[in-house]
């Protein structure tokens, strides 16, 4: 039998390199971060839903027939349902490929978006799986609560260029029911209401910062 150096053997390669080194990476980069972050308990949707955001009630008032049809009364139960549905749509439409959900402590992001992200704000059931994101074509969304009204969001989802002329965001016309009479505006359906509610929820827990000091050029509308 020819001489076989240990590091060139099938068992060494598969067990040391394959299982061992991979296990080391899991230990350092999965198990350790998990041990650190689990000190903050994960919040369930039901706990979040104890206090619906004001925008949720606004949706119920602004689109009463649609809201009643798809979600019933605005309460904690319907709010939890809307949050879960909104998160699922956010994933299904791959919103997270073009929008992130964390504000970095660099690149003036706290001035542009708001308070820098902290680990506890991602410790909730709606971050299973996490939606931090790796690309921004559009802006970060973790501080978007209340930045725009529900009507702005409805117009923006229907045709983004109506409110942001240079936007490259796709239009999501399937978030809307066709108008009852020709000429009426399309009304958001269950998916439209849910995704607007979800975006309005993002960052609703973070206390607002004082208004940012922007360069003169950026301050103009």
């Amino acid at each position, binding site marked *: *039998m*020819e001489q*076989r*150096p240990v590091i060139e*053997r*099938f068992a060494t*390669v*598969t067990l040391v*390199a*394959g299982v061992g*080194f*991979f296990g*080391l*990476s*899991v230990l350092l*980069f*999965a198990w*350790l*971060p*998990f041990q*650190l*972050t689990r000190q903050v308990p*994960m919040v369930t949707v039901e706990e979040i839903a104890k206090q619906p955001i004001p925008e949720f009630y606004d949706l119920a008032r602004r689109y009463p027939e649609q809201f009643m049809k798809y979600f019933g009364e605005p309460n904690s139960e319907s709010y939890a349902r809307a949050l879960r549905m909104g998160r699922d749509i956010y994933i*299904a*439409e*791959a919103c997270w*490929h*073009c929008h992130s959900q964390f504000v*970095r402590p*660099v*690149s*003036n992001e706290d*001035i*542009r978006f708001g308070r820098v*992200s902290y*680990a506890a*704000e*991602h*410790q*909730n*059931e709606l*971050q*299973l*799986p*996490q939606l*931090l*994101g*790796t690309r*921004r074509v559009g*802006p970060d969304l973790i501080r978007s609560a209340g930045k725009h009204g529900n009507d702005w969001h409805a117009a923006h989802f229907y045709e983004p260029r109506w409110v*942001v*002329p*240079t936007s*490259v965001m*796709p*239009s999501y016309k*399937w978030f809307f029911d066709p108008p009852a009479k020709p000429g009426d505006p399309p009304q958001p359906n269950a998916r439209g209401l849910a995704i607007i509610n979800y975006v309005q929820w993002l960052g609703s827990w973070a206390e607002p910062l004082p208004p940012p000091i*922007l*360069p003169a050029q*950026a301050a103009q509308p």
Partner: protein
Amino acid sequence: MSESQYPQPAPVETRLVFWYFVAGMVYFAIALLAGFFFSLQFLNHYPFAGIEWLSPGRVRMLHTNAVAYGFILNCFLGALHWVVPRLTRYPVASRGLSWFIFWAVQAIVLATAFGLLAGHAQAIEWGETPLYVDPFVVVGLILMGINFSVPIFKASRKPLYVSLWYFSVAFVWTTLNYVMGNFIPQFFTPGAAGAAIVGLFIHDLVGLLVTPIGWGLMYYFVPVILKKPIWSHAVSLIGFWGLAFFYPLQGVHHFFWSTIPMFAQYSAVVSTIGVEVVVMTVFVNFVATVRGRGEAFKQLPIRWFYTGIVFYMITCAQCAYQALLTTQKIIHFTDWVVGHAHLVMFGVFGFWILGIVTELWPRLTGRPWHNPSLNTAHYWLSTAGMLIMFVDLLAAGVLQGYLWQSLAPWEQSLVASVPFWAWRTASGLMIIAGQVLFFYNMWRTAAAPLPAAETKPVPEPVTV
């Protein structure tokens, strides 16, 4: 080219290799179209606006998943069925199992494509495969591992060649990685810890599946075509063990400046630089192998391989530089990363696959290339398109990063990016034009009448 330049042939399922390449190229065509249409969204000329199942966000996932699981995995499996029996001189575990895996892969890719377009995606980057498909992927990976490990294990009574180290470990890694990346963040770890695991998964899919199989194939095809051994066995050992140790440790660099604990972010910087230094030895090994053999570049496969190897060197140098916390302040979230990803997936591994198909297609079909000059045009269009896209997206990324930092209104970064996005689409069209020539050439070659004195059965024509 004569058969004698290859090692003694072992039972190779030639038709299986052929069909893997056909399937790979069909998904490649789909991926190219999906990428092209998605790029039109950035110019606000998306042709299917308002159609839910062809929403740009869903088509984007189709693009990346068709590249990874349709194009690269299929072509790699085909090449493995060609290489492993030759290197080990044993057939794969089971002929029936091989064909079962072939159909299982196609079923999984099609189910994934359906799930993505239907809105059942999972929010794991590169793992958007719907949750209901994931268990089948794991079973498939285990079966692939068994199928190829049996001949490698039998051959391991003698010292194993470097290619076989890479092949035998790739399926162990990928099975573990797939289970970790698709199930733990989905059910157990939210937020920062989940992001750390997803980072590992994103990086390990490229680093522990595509990279080892790609390098293993290069360690086979380059010496065989050059008819000379690889320059240094010792250096190939360093390359392998360096990759094996450092590669799994760097996934967190996809989420720098996030809420992931900083010790993980700092370690990811160190191991990223570490792996790039170590894999540079692989680059040196291959350059030293081809040294003094400049005439070999007249052979198109060698040209594909070495262009890919140079691109690999560029991506590694770039990776060590871009994974610094300082650089990340500007280039993270921008098109810079998109350019990097395209150079890795197409410029390196895509180029290697195209070189392998260029080399093997006449041998699989038993016919000479219909028109070799089309293959030359294919090479130049792909290389030029890839380089333009890479430089263009890098420049766009730097511009976007500084515009965001400058606090200019967000829309300004969109307006400034439009010319770059237009160039991206144009360079993508160059790449597509090259592949159309190649697909046409493949089809004409396979459909041509057999040369005289050949009695092989006629494979069915390739339609892509």
